[in-house]
């Protein structure tokens, strides 16, 4: 088990929507085994910052670099190293859980055996529900499936926007365990949250404030 040195470098990032300035000059650098929490009140731009880190949004100022083994990954290939759980990123309602897993796996070139799938589903507490359509899932089950899809390729960087959304006690514990395992393994995790107990999962906290 060898995880290469990971380094996420956020340099002077600022973003504005039209004339509205969200924030400016956010800089930090995190690496292997770090768990970082981004906090701030509603509308402060936590989710936007995660999107910028994932490369889904171009920041109006500054830059974000994800380096693996000291090599900077081009933004087009960044998604191979990223897992992302967010309320804005939905799964396909009319497909079953397994079909969703297979589709997103296929986009990364992953193929799964039945036994793998069973193990993965059990891990997030969806045992035996793999052939149900996601549209019939409860919101908590959808969130669990999102976790499964976000971590199934063991991403070096995991981004969690509102990590505990819609989850029950058992679900929260699974998330806690995932974060713990990733920290042990030397992966990087970033959460955006407002919940004080979720902030406790993180090693360091970055407050985002509107200018």
């Amino acid at each position: 088990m060898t995880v290469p040195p990971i380094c996420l470098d956020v340099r002077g990032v600022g973003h504005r929507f039209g004339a509205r300035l969200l924030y400016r000059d956010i800089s930090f650098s995190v690496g292997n085994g770090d768990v970082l929490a981004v906090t701030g009140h509603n509308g402060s731009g936590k989710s936007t910052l995660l999107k910028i880190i994932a490369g889904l949004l171009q920041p109006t100022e500054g830059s974000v670099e994800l380096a693996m083994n000291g090599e900077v990954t081009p933004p087009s290939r960044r998604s191979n190293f990223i897992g992302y759980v967010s309320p804005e990123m939905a799964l396909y309602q009319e497909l079953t859980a397994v079909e969703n897993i297979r589709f997103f796996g296929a986009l990364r070139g992953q193929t799964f055996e039945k036994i793998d799938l069973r193990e993965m589903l059990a891990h997030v507490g969806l045992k035996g529900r793999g052939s149900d359509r996601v549209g019939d899932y409860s919101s908590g089950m959808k969130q669990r499936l999102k976790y499964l899809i976000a971590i199934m390729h063991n991403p070096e960087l995991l981004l969690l926007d509102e990590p505990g959304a819609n989850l029950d006690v058992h679900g929260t514990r699974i998330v806690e365990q995932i974060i713990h395992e990733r920290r042990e393994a030397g992966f990087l995790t970033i959460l955006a949250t407002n919940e004080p107990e979720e902030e406790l999962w993180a090693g360091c906290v970055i407050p985002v404030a509107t200018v």
Partner: protein
Amino acid sequence: MGRVRYSCCNGMNDQTWIQQALALFRKDILAETRTRVAFGAMGVFSFASLLLIALAMVGLKGVLIQNSSGQAVPAWNNSGKMSLLWVLLCFAAFAGLSHSFVYEEETGTASTLKLHMGPQAVYAGKLLFNTTVLLAVSLVITPMYMVMTGMDAGTLPMFFAVMLSGTASLSAVATVVAALAARARSTGALFGAVGLPMLTVLLVLIMNAARQCYIRSESAVQYLRPLTGIVCFGVLIVTLSAMLFHYIWED
């Protein structure tokens, strides 16, 4: 999966955009077989229009008119029928082809796709899907139309060439306009209003080519020239769309 395992490859390698596009295509086909929204909407729409056209033109049966060279020809003739078939297919395309982009935006899966694949792959996958659905619809509707209106196919190779190139170009235009319209709030109204002017030009070309199906000609050039017009139109649209798609798709 139970514990975090890490291996360098993990059975995962860089997917080319073609493989990603094919995965998206397979996903869309699978979803389409579940919901049948696009195919159903287009099928019902074009069948209803087919009935309307057939009924509206019943009165023209046997009516003769003078053409530009003074000969008496039937008013409800093959090239007229063919033109109306294309108007029908054109409207059918606009009834169903926006679905593939709109539902990604509406259900919030668009941002998930953005994370997992590049814009070129998305464009290629959606174009492939839309072309397939439109071809399927025209495959069902055209024979029905021919039976109900008594339209002849004329020169068969030309007929098939027009159907194929026309359908492909039609879906190329509809796909890029659908992607544009899906980014707006009032998608439905916008899609038709923005796309139809572009399609009108294509329709003029297609009708011009379709007329050739019923004109006996010795030289192949007579057949090829109108076809190249259609094919060039489609190829140009696809090229420009592929080049510009990331401006449409990404924020």
